[in-house]
């Protein structure tokens, strides 16, 4: 698509102002994209590590759990897990990264218990089932699952952040490219053609004047 422009000085000035504006926007968007990218890179690697850790720990937890299931009869297990062990509450807050609002989540009221990160189950919640009828494998499995939950909460908000940032980066990149490869070259092309037309008019004016002068002198 070519930009239509009349060959006038006023039009030329207007086009040049548009180029300046587009270049300024381009620079700003490029900075935004670079900054978003930096944020993105730093959390992408974190997310990947988290996911790997999660996969390992979840596997271990499932293994303990199936051990517990093998030992206990299904009815006892069902009974033990009947009462939900007090669902954790999540506090959600929001953070602004380059105008992208991303969530931050945290498990409520776990900080003090998590303070000593020894990893043993005495720091966790008390089981919500009787200890008499169940085996220690179940305690083990449950405490492993409990340890995984904060990890999952962290992973969740990091992955959401990645998703949101990826959207924004893509959008910004499109805009940068549109300015850089479409709008600005087109405007420059238009300026060039208007300048050439103006010069042409100038030249024809001069040659006309010279001609007129000649005619006047001949008289």
């Amino acid at each position: 698509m070519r930009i239509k422009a009349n060959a006038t000085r006023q039009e030329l000035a207007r086009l040049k102002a548009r180029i300046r504006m587009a270049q300024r926007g381009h620079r700003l968007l490029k900075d935004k994209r670079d900054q978003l990218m930096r944020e993105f890179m730093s959390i992408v690697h974190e997310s990947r590590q988290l996911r790997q850790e999660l996969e390992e720990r979840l596997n271990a937890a499932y293994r303990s759990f199936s051990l517990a299931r093998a030992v206990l009869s299904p009815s006892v297990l069902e009974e033990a897990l009947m009462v939900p062990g007090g669902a954790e509450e999540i506090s959600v807050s929001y953070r602004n990264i380059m105008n992208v609002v991303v969530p931050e989540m945290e498990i409520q009221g776990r900080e003090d218990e998590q303070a000593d990160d020894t990893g043993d189950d005495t720091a966790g919640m008390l089981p919500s089932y009787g200890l008499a009828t169940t085996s220690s494998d179940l305690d083990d499995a449950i405490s492993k699952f409990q340890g995984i939950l904060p990890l999952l909460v962290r992973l969740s908000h990091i992955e959401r952040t990645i998703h949101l940032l990826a959207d924004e980066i893509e959008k910004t990149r499109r805009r940068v490219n549109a300015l850089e490869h479409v709008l600005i070259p087109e405007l420059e092309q238009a300026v060039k053609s208007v300048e050439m037309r103006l010069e042409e008019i100038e030249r024809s004016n001069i040659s006309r004047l010279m001609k007129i002068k000649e005619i006047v002198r001949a008289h």
Partner: protein
Amino acid sequence: MRVMPKVAVLGQRDAVLGFKASGAVAFPADNPKEVREHLNAILQGDYAILLVTEEIAEIFEKDLEPLYDMPKPVVTILPDARKPRGVGMELLRRRVERAVGADILFKGEE
């Protein structure tokens, strides 16, 4: 008292039972109909995070897709109990590729 959002786990019975006693709300589902019903319940309830097993995430990809752009709940894919198939990692990889235009995360590792 303000009611705080919680964590929901949606998956096959064996996969979610373990979470039940450890601070998440479990939604055991053994057939597609149950999954849909639970999904609706979860969307109406106040849940900050929805954990979905890989298997369900694959089958219900279409149903879960719109949730990624919603503020709540945040959908996170759990690795499978027996052998992780890396559905969550794949999603991450796709997002990186979309943002950066190239796969920088797993480049040269396959």
